[in-house]
């Protein structure tokens, strides 16, 4: 994989900020888009834009085919058995809300428990909290060890006969911890508890096979894997998707409607009320083809070497504290320097053309656990280079003394 060549596929990487070349280390928030994805969006609107599934006319057929073949591409990409296992959503957040609502309606009652982990993003906390509020159920939280790994022993002990579902991140968006998802699933399944895995930070960075993991639900966002915003994916096992009620009502998700009674459409349409983002889905399919051609193993290896290199170089800085030192990490490095506030570091780095994320990264409970004001987070994509890490380090060596 030739990164310098691949960089040319991303027009925004040629942009300058404050007159300096952009160093984009905020890929965990969103990724930049290659030309082929941009072209696909343009083609969608200039060549085959028509509402899908309901038109008999030519353009509608083309658009429907594009959307449905995108579903197949997604299914193949994550190793789903069939395209009907794939529900398009607005993103990871909506996918989790869908399951929290629909699964919760059907299977969670008073006194039941939902088990999450202490390293979840707000989007994998709040929907469950809302469900527990509605149903008088209990949200339980498996703790994180000081090094950023999940406390598996505590997790196992917290799986009780009242636990109705487990929801856990594959990769932490703050710590970079890669959770042992197969072990999590196995432990939960041993007690017949289904598991949702939040793949927002894993799918863009490593090969993922949902059947190998044996997850009951697996969710991710398109825009974090070089696709456009507004499209995400919910993978679900057929028996679960069939067992839970629809999330939203509307067009597309119905089979037959009378004022007395409505019957619902088959999978996956039962969960896709209204006009879906069929331009976004085809753009996502293009993005998946793009990374597929490069190879997810190659991308993972490249990003792993960036993480190793950046971690080693960060340690050159006095007072460096890396938050999250799990044995297996992916995608992100969070850190603090001495007593410097992350906001200050982020603002000064920005002035030098370096885009990092600062703050609590929508994982406030985790930040509170570490007793810190937030972190500075650098997160990598396939187009980042060691040279950029060197530029980042040069900037750090200028701004850290200013703030110390």
């Amino acid at each position: 994989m030739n990164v310098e060549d691949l960089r040319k596929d991303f027009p925004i990487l040629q942009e300058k900020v404050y007159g300096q070349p952009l160093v984009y280390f905020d890929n965990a928030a969103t990724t930049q888009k290659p030309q082929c994805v941009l072209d696909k969006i343009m083609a969608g609107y200039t060549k085959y834009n028509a509402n899908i599934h309901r038109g008999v006319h030519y353009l509608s057929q083309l658009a429907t085919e594009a959307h449905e073949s995108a579903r197949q591409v997604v299914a193949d990409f994550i190793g789903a058995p069939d395209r009907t296992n794939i529900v398009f959503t607005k993103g990871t957040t909506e996918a989790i809300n869908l399951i929290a609502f629909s699964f919760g309606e059907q299977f969670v009652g008073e006194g039941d428990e939902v088990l999450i982990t202490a390293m979840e993003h707000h989007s994998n906390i709040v929907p469950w909290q809302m469900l527990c509020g509605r149903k008088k159920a209990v949200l339980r939280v498996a703790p994180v060890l000081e090094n950023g790994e999940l406390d598996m022993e505590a997790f196992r002990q917290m799986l009780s006969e009242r636990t109705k579902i487990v929801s856990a991140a594959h990769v932490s968006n703050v710590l970079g911890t890669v959770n042992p998802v197969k072990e999590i699933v196995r432990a939960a399944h041993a007690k017949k508890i289904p598991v949702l895995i939040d793949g927002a930070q894993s799918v863009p960075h490593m090969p993922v096979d949902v059947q190998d993991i044996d997850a009951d639900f697996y969710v991710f966002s398109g825009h974090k894997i070089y696709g456009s915003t507004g499209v995400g994916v919910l993978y679900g096992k057929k028996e679960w998707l069939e067992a839970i009620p629809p999330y939203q009502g509307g067009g597309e998700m119905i089979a037959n409607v009378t004022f007395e009674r409505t019957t619902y459409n088959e999978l996956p349409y039962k969960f896709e009320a209204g006009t879906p983002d069929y331009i976004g889905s085809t753009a996502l399919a293009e993005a998946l083809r793009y990374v597929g051609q490069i190879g997810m193993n190659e991308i993972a290896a490249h990003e792993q070497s960036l993480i190793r290199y950046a971690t080693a170089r960060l340690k050159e800085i006095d007072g460096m504290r890396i938050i999250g030192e799990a044995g297996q990490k992916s995608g992100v490095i969070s850190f603090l320097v001495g007593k410097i506030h992350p906001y200050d570091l982020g603002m000064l780095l920005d002035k030098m053309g370096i885009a990092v994320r600062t703050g609590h990264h929508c994982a406030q409970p985790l930040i509170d656990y570490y007793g810190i004001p937030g972190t500075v987070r650098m997160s990598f994509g396939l187009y980042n280079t060691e040279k950029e890490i060197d530029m980042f380090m040069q900037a750090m060596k200028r701004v850290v003394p200013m703030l110390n």
Partner: protein
Amino acid sequence: MTINELQDEIIDEFSVLEDWMDKYGMLIDLGNTLEPFPEEYRIPQNLIEGCQSRVWLHAEMQQGNVVFAGDSDAILVKGIVSLLIKVLSGHTPDEILNTELYFIDRIGLKEHLSPTRSNGLLAMVKQMKMYALAFQATQQ
């Protein structure tokens, strides 16, 4: 000095600073030299929680003037807190309420007051005016 004279003075001081590094260096100095925030004021009612950083603000009346004390956990934010206090503290509620704060924009630090930064500064400016309004009401 009037509030506007104080604003103009700050604009003058910043106008000699050439690049952003000097400007930010100045903010950091201002943050470091801000009078320490009295610990008894560090209470939840005085905390303005931003998404990125926290700001504390205390206000009281002294001989008809509003006196502010402030603090932040981020030094750049604290620098701007220091400037806001320098400009607004020690003036009557009427003066504070009738002021348009133009200096932040003119010294090129407007981005720190943008709502998207979510650092608590915008809420602080609003809160300073709210205090002035409240004190004005009790005077009448």
